[in-house]
């Protein structure tokens, strides 16, 4: 693994996180999550619990959160599953951070569609703003990771920052997003060029008759076939 994360020393994390337990609020959420699954199937709660735990760690450290080993073990105990089984899940999903990250975890997609649409510029913007791949900025604000397709290809290039996607980026808009975050603002998620979801840029290009009202295309369709 080229950019293997640096997992802190075990004794250190154990000392810091060994006593991890749900906060009052998260305890409530945890009970709710657990209630979703039939008895005997508590293992199904692995992913939601890990997510909840990561968020709690995030809240406690004022970062996006990560999963120290003792916290993973806490989750395993909470659902009565061997540590290994939950550890496997935590290492499998890239959304779980195995090492501390900054306040904002900037995940830049570098897969083909994003790359063709200019993800190199997005990365350059990040770099020039002081972000380093695989590392956290000294102010603890940004952690940069390059990831594979995040399923937002129609709005490429994109970056995922914590729970939000920022799409249709270019160099300047990326800088703008980062600057806003650094200032403590919360830039609006989604397309940065005002596109709604992944509607075509510049208005519809097909089924135009449908834009204002419902339109019955069937006769045209039949004609086309007859012809």
């Amino acid at each position: 693994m080229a950019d293997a994360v640096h997992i802190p020393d075990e004794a250190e994390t154990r000392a810091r996180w060994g006593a991890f337990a749900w906060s009052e609020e998260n305890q409530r959420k945890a009970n709710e999550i657990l209630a979703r699954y039939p008895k005997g199937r508590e293992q199904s709660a692995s992913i939601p619990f890990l997510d909840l735990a990561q968020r709690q760690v995030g809240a406690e450290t004022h970062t996006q959160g990560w999963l120290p080993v003792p916290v993973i073990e806490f989750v395993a105990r909470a659902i009565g599953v061997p540590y290994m089984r939950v550890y496997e899940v935590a290492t499998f999903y890239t959304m779980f951070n195995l090492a501390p990250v900054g306040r904002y975890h900037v995940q830049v997609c570098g897969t083909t569609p994003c790359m063709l649409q200019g993800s190199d510029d997005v990365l350059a913007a990040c770099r020039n703003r002081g972000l380093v791949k695989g590392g956290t900025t000294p102010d603890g604000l940004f952690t940069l990771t390059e990831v594979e397709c995040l399923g937002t290809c129609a709005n490429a290039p994109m970056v995922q920052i914590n729970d939000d996607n920022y799409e249709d980026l270019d160099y300047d808009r990326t800088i703008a997003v980062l600057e806003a975050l650094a200032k403590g603002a919360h830039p609006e998620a989604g397309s940065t060029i005002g596109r709604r979801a992944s509607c075509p840029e510049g208005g519809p290009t097909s089924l135009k008759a449908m834009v204002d009202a419902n339109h019955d295309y069937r006769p045209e369709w039949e004609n086309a076939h007859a012809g």
Partner: protein
Amino acid sequence: MPKLKVDGIEVEVPQGATVLQACEAAGKEIPRFCYHERLSIAGNCRMCLVEVKPGPPKPQASCALPAADNQEVFTTTPMVKNAREGIMEFLLINHPLDCPICDQGGECDLQDQSVAYGRGQSRYAENKRAVTEKYMGPIVKTIMTRCIQCTRCIRFAEEVAGVEEIGAIYRGENMQITSYLEEAVTSELSGNVVDLCPVGALTSKPYQYEARPWELRRTLTIDVMDAVGTNIRLDSRGRQVLRCVPRINEDVNEEWASDKTRHAIDGLVRRRLDKPYVRVNGKLLPATWDEAFAAIAAVDHGGSVAAVAGDLVDCETMYAAKALVRSLGSSLLEGRQTGMAYDTSSLAAVNFNTTIAGTEEADAILLVGTNLRWEAPLVNTRVRKAIKRGAKVFAVGPETELTYKVEWLGHDLSVLGDLPDTVAKIFADAGKPMVIVGGAALKDGHGAALKLVETLNLVRNGWNGFNVVHMAAARMGGLMLGYAAKGGIADLTHAKLTFFLGADEVDYSRFGGFKVYVGHHGDAGAAHADVVLPGASYAEKSGTWVNLEGRVQRGERAVFPPGDAREDWSIFRALSDVMGARLPFDSLAGLREEMYGEVPALRHEGLVSFGWSVPAIDGSASGTIGGYPIKDFYLTNAICRASPTMQRCSAELVHGETFAEAAE
């Protein structure tokens, strides 16, 4: 019962069988890596691809495809050949091909199958991926770059060993097999993953770089580390046993062996008694056989002679000693070294009657004073199988981790006479109820446990649910040969001359007379003896052992005893001459004939029928179980105690010492 055709051969297979099994039934070999008869189906290596009609026009993984009526399976078509070559090529992309320095070389599935089904050439010119080694404990060495991610080891740990400490972390190209946080796997069955691993990723640490399989002489014999009687093969070179691996015996060990069975063998060449010793002026001094015999012959025993059998000895040794004791005019015999004196008037009442394999069928199991995981690990795996089929398990005794869910009923034996209603109800509804009594309960709880036969209706048509689990390989054979005095060891202590047959667990201070130790290690016993006669270990003699379920099994000699040591029976034969009480046999075959004459059940290999009768013992139960007899699984006998591997296992896995791995 689906009927299908494999390469034109019609076969009928049981419902639920897979296409792979159908192919085997038709005599076709299907290459495979991830599939294993005794583990769940993973279907992730794709080596078992075959062409199946009807079905999509692509090869299908036969191990994961249920056999169905009217299927036509092809295993020799160009599609199949191509598919196998393709898979082999893929598997080898990241495999290091370091066979010349790999311990698996010569017995590697990957090697064999790439010769048989591969292309002989790779088109891959990129860099291979490399994976760092993972620490898995003192038994298993890992070279993870060789791993093909078949997940057999993970499935074994979870399903058979019941210790979910091996897993696959990360994903895709980065996936790695590891133990949790690279800590030692805390299973007494961990060595089995070495056999299961189809490549050289998991190999045996104690055996590393010791030998190549083709240099080894293979001897089939029986393990003596516990009373299960694991069927083993000893691989030796010259005078040394280098490796011990299990043989398949569905009735006994399936194809598993405990780590003790596998790795105590390095104790066979250490701390051995290899010459006779005689005590002179309070000190044991080396002597010749003649001097040693003369010293024994000089004892004025007046017919007061006894023999105490150790835990590892074979029936032949015990018979020879018994014959000598008898010809000297005595009948004092005992094998229960720790002083136990349970009733042996009915051997069925101290036998594992359900049989090891039968355990799988039980639907309600009560463990009484047994830490089955340590006392008989391969019976424990059967209990796990029974649980998988829906059995409920209860236990009386101090709580301990048995690798499955147990409902503990406290450690007071009186609970046997007064089972909680919920438990009684489950047993009343059970079709095949089972009680397993361990050594910790035999003393005070034997009668009470026997009473359960009646109250829980344990013995019924075609089912006997009463079981005693012994821990000594010599026990059942010894009991059959009469090595049981009414009052136990206490009845023997007055003897003027006592032979100790590899007995290291007895309290020697109770014996006043002349003590002769006959055995191979004698770490605890020899020092107390007046004369020490060096004998043969289980690897150095052909012998008969009877396992805890009363199964007579015979093993062959793998190597010769070291130095002046001799096979035990021949020692007694020679000694009998000197003592003027010549024994009537002068070959092993002759001895066996005599022995069979006396105990006919020993003649035929297989289960002995002890009939069923309940001795009249007081059935009231009282007292508590303070602890289990085995305090340290890895150091239960003289061979293990001499074994560096077992010492290391004990230190690390039982006593929690940590060993930093030396950088390689």
